[in-house]
């Protein structure tokens, strides 16, 4: 059975594969020769485990993620279900914006997707899962985009934290990625935040996260280490 290289990222290579008749993606984290070997081994294995762990925790919370078929620690690769007939949210937004030059109209068309993003992230944070690398490229729409089947991928930088700080940073990372990949979409991001809020059952937790988001917006992702 042959594997076909699909994509090469900074962290890993993605191959398309057939796992006993099931369409599969192999994500192989390769060695980075510029890193100290001990650090490299430790980081690679940490991220592999973090990815698998967060994927499963999300599924248990009812958030769609690819099914894991196999984990190979020998070459740090994960065999997972290929989400077929899917496009990234990034592609989707770009396509709609391309087709509809009227900005308000385009945003109207995209707003259901923004809502489901907010809802999904709210559910994820309610379960104390921090994605760590939220971008519109790490969200897939499976099938017809109107079905709003949002699949989250790429949990390599994920962690489990209950703090409002980490959730605020998670949203901040998305905001920066969102606004830089998609021009003129502040309104859409506001829809995400709004739907995040409506879904969150614990209203005081929501306020805390948003207060943190405002704080992080002023200072950037990294906390000041003074004092």
């Amino acid at each position, binding site marked *: *059975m042959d594997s076909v290289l699909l994509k090469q990222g900074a962290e890993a290579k993605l191959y398309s594969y057939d*796992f*006993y008749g*099931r369409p599969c993606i192999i994500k192989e984290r390769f060695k980075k020769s510029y890193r100290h070997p001990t650090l490299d081994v430790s980081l690679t294995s940490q991220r592999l*485990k973090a990815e*698998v*762990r967060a*994927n*499963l*925790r999300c*599924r*248990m*919370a*009812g*958030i*769609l993620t690819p*099914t*894991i*078929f*196999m*984990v*190979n*620690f*020998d070459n740090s690769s994960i*065999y997972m*279900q290929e989400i077929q007939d899917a496009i990234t949210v990034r592609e989707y937004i770009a396509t709609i914006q391309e087709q509809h030059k009227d900005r308000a109209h385009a945003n109207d068309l995209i707003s259901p997707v923004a809502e489901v993003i907010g809802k999904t992230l709210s559910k994820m944070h309610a379960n104390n899962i921090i994605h760590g690398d939220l971008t519109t490229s790490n969200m897939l729409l499976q099938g017809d985009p109107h079905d709003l089947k949002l699949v989250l991928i790429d949990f390599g930088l994920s962690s489990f934290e209950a703090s409002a700080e980490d959730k605020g940073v998670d949203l901040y990372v998305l905001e920066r990625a969102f606004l830089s990949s998609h021009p003129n979409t502040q309104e859409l991001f506001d829809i995400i935040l709004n739907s995040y809020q409506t879904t969150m059952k614990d209203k005081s937790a929501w306020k805390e996260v948003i207060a943190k988001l405002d704080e992080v917006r002023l200072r950037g992702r990294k906390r000041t280490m003074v004092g």
Partner: protein
Amino acid sequence: MAAHRKIKHTIYNDSTITFALFVNLESCKNIRKCVMNGTVEASLLKSSMIIDPFQVLVAANKAVHLYKSNSMMTKNVHSEILFCLSPSKNISESFRAFGAADSDTSVFVAIVNDTEDKTLAKVSEILGHQPVPLEGVSSLGDIKLITKAYKLTDEELSHFPMLDALVSRIAAKEIITAGKGRI
């Protein structure tokens, strides 16, 4: 004898995995004895804990991989299949929950590297039965028992097929059960 299935391992082309399902048995007592004393090398799986052959395939695929990379938790590849299939990290508990019992009237058999199907023939002979199509296992699976053993949540089952939920857990077992024992 076409009811059994022999599959090449996805990574190790020199390894095969054979599956066979036997039903309407009087008991599994004799075959269990043969496996315990080593005259038959096979994995005897409790059919009520299986909903699809793919569930066992993911466990067997993993067991062979661990065998090849010298990182098995149990003493041979056949017991490793049993252990891989179980979500528990306790070996004897896994054997109790996922291994066939003497009183079982059906059994799902997995055999690694069965040259010329000799072991399968021996198993059939001891059981006095021929294997039946593997897909029959889906009607033998006890959904309630499986849900409980793998701790599947309602949230999860409302969004995913049960098979995918099981497969993910089997593949990721050592990662999710590490540490404090919770995912």
